[in-house]
């Protein structure tokens, strides 16, 4: 009998594993089109979103209706024009045209100076200007109304200078971490979490189903190959691609978006790999349970994309959500990863400030991987 000796079994297993990993890499590398997409698309997104997205509200289109047309309204209009918050699109002749302009979406807000505005101010010491905001977007309405009010407050302060205003409190505001209120410091960590999560999950979700669909799974299962090796071999190329993606993103945000890693790069990369592994495990779970590639992809896209987008916390604050959703948000790995990137990359804090998040990610990763391992069926139906 020529059975291999027991001490050689381990070695043989390792060799098998490496052969299999090599096969997976070859398969991935051979498909140039997919490879180009896997690298090109995340990069394009980071650059596009980093430059284009911003929460700052400026250049809002507004309409002015001036029934008074005196020196004071001209002065106020001049002040409104001078601010970069507003883009005065048209001076309407009358308020009747407002509804039409709002309905076409031409303007976001209208400022109306009633008749005798200046006279009232001079003679009675009081004048009221009317502001109508298109509140279909509530935040924009609130913000631009606030901007306008602050312009009027400035004007009042000017008026008051002659009258010697008493007891003036002067708030001095300092914008920390992001003084120019750029969108990128918030969106880059968010998009990083989003892109890594989706790319990892999707790539992996297809991996095992594809073998099932093509019928090659049968061959793998009848071979003397341990199921765990199949899984490891499937994950290896995806892990590598994701890590390369991560480095490209970090370099891009440093070079193009002026967002260097302020904290320890080592810590950030370590946490990122942990996050990537978690996402790969989710993909694995999806892949094991889906019957077709299409179902797996739909599951990872429909099931992951919007929840990740919304529950990560970079678009909407989690503390505003109903309690049930806050609990749900805790289950989304990208939520924790997003906090880690913000703390380490943007604020430059150390491990002490993110140990909790790291621990949660590690727990999720272990749990998901164990479940998928348990669910991996070694028999075909």
């Amino acid at each position, binding site marked *: 009998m020529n059975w291999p000796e027991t001490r050689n079994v381990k070695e043989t297993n390792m060799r098998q594993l490496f052969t299999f990993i090599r096969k997976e890499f070859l398969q991935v590398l051979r498909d140039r089109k997919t490879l180009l997409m896997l690298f090109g698309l995340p990069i394009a997104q980071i650059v596009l979103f980093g430059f284009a997205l911003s929460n700052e509200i400026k250049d809002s289109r507004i309409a002015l209706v001036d029934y008074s047309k005196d020196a004071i309204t001209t002065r106020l209009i001049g002040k409104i024009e001078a601010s970069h918050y507003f883009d005065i699109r048209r001076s309407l002749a009358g308020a009747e045209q407002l509804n039409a302009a709002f309905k076409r979406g031409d303007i976001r807000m209208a400022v109306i100076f009633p008749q005798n505005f200046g006279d009232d101010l001079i003679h009675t*010491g009081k004048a009221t200007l009317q*502001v109508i905001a298109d509140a279909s977007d509530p935040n924009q309405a609130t913000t631009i109304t606030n901007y306008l009010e602050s312009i009027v407050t400035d004007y009042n302060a000017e008026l008051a200078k002659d009258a010697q205003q008493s007891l*003036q*409190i002067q708030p001095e*505001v300092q914008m920390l971490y992001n003084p120019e209120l750029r969108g990128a410091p918030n969106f880059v960590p968010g998009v990083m979490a989003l892109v890594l999560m989706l790319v990892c999950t999707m790539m992996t979700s297809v991996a095992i189903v594809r073998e099932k669909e093509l019928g090659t799974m049968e061959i793998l299962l009848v071979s003397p190959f341990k199921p765990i090796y199949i899984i490891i071999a499937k994950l290896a190329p995806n892990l590598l691609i994701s890590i390369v993606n991560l480095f490209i993103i970090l370099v891009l945000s440093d070079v193009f978006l002026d967002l260097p890693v302020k904290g320890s790069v080592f810590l950030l990369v370590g946490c990122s790999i942990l996050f990537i592994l978690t996402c790969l495990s989710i993909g694995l779970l999806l892949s094991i349970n889906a019957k077709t590639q299409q*179902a797996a992809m739909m599951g990872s896209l429909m099931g992951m994309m919007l929840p990740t987008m*919304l529950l990560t916390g970079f678009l*909407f604050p989690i503390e505003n959500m109903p309690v049930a959703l806050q609990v749900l948000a805790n289950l989304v790995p990208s939520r924790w990863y997003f906090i880690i990137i913000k703390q380490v990359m943007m604020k430059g804090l150390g491990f002490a400030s993110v140990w909790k998040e790291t621990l949660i990610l590690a727990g999720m990763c272990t749990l998901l991987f164990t479940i998928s391992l348990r669910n991996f069926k070694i028999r075909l139906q």
Partner: protein
Amino acid sequence: MKTLVFLLEKEFRQLLRNRQLLRTLLLAPLIQLILLPLAADYSVKNINIAVTDNDHSPSSQRLIAKITASGYFRLTGYTASYPAALKMVEQDKADLALQIPAHFERDLVRENTKQLYIAINAIEGTKANLGGAYLRSIIGDFNDDLRVQWNMMTETGQGNAISASAGQDDPPQVSVASSNWYNPFLNFHLYMVPAILVTLVTAIAAMQSAFNIVQEKESGTIEQINVSPIKKHIFIIGKMIPFLALGILLFTMGLLVGRLLYGIVPVGSLLVLYVSLVVYLFAMLGLGLLLATYSNTQMQAMSLSFFFINIFNMMSGVFTSIDSMPGWAQAIVFTFPPSHFIKIMRTVVLKGSGFSDIMPELWAMAAIGVFLNTWAVLNYRKTA
């Protein structure tokens, strides 16, 4: 024509047969539509504030009480020193820090002016903007109250001699009367639900048509169709109609959910909405088709459609305003069909806009649709 009917029968059968897929296609968007608007709430409340009161005067106490009573702010820290408050901002336990310096009240009375220090975590732009604006307006109100009180005190306590210098004749004031049209209660759901519905329809329409064709490529059945005398455009129309129907069904379900759950009744006419929907689906199915002609495997189709959908979701004005993007980005966004449809949805549902108001968007979508579909048909080769 007869060929088309047979093709449609085949497509619908295939679609209806795959229960797992059908479930995902219909249920996943619905569940999301039910849950997500709850998450997409950006009404700014619960801004966490850390306060350092180095003054401990009645005035500083009143200011803090006024801030916490406003309903926008949640006092999460009352620290002894300003660095400690800043530390809380650093650890994300507070969004902004306010310092009331020592001798605030005394200096305010003596020197007639005094600073307050505010530090805002500006990583999150909207919160920083609105939080800062709210805090400033509360401080402004407080300032006015203080003045009135001070004037009264000086008048009653020390007679008229001093009150004249402290501003008996008030300076002229311009006040602002603001009103919010179309959404007077600033309900965020009204704004988000129509847009989220569009993103869900987008995902189904653009992706499924791409997948469907690529699946035929992968399984080899497209060869059989290619060798048959079925004309290119008939084949493509046959692929499009089922997904058009699916999109309309999904959209209708979404409108119902919006109505039953969030009480959103479109102000405008349903006809305008559905006409726009069909034009929109035409454009998006064209995109799906185009992607299908460029991919050989489902994996490729998926990566490509994922790329587009992600970009559409992030840049079409669902979450952030298109107006505040740089000019080049606005030009790019103009070529995205969802940006137009989202605008149409929002204006029709909230403001009741009619055809004449949304014509520019409708034309833009139609033009993009014709362009994409022509490109797709030209690029689709019956030879493998």
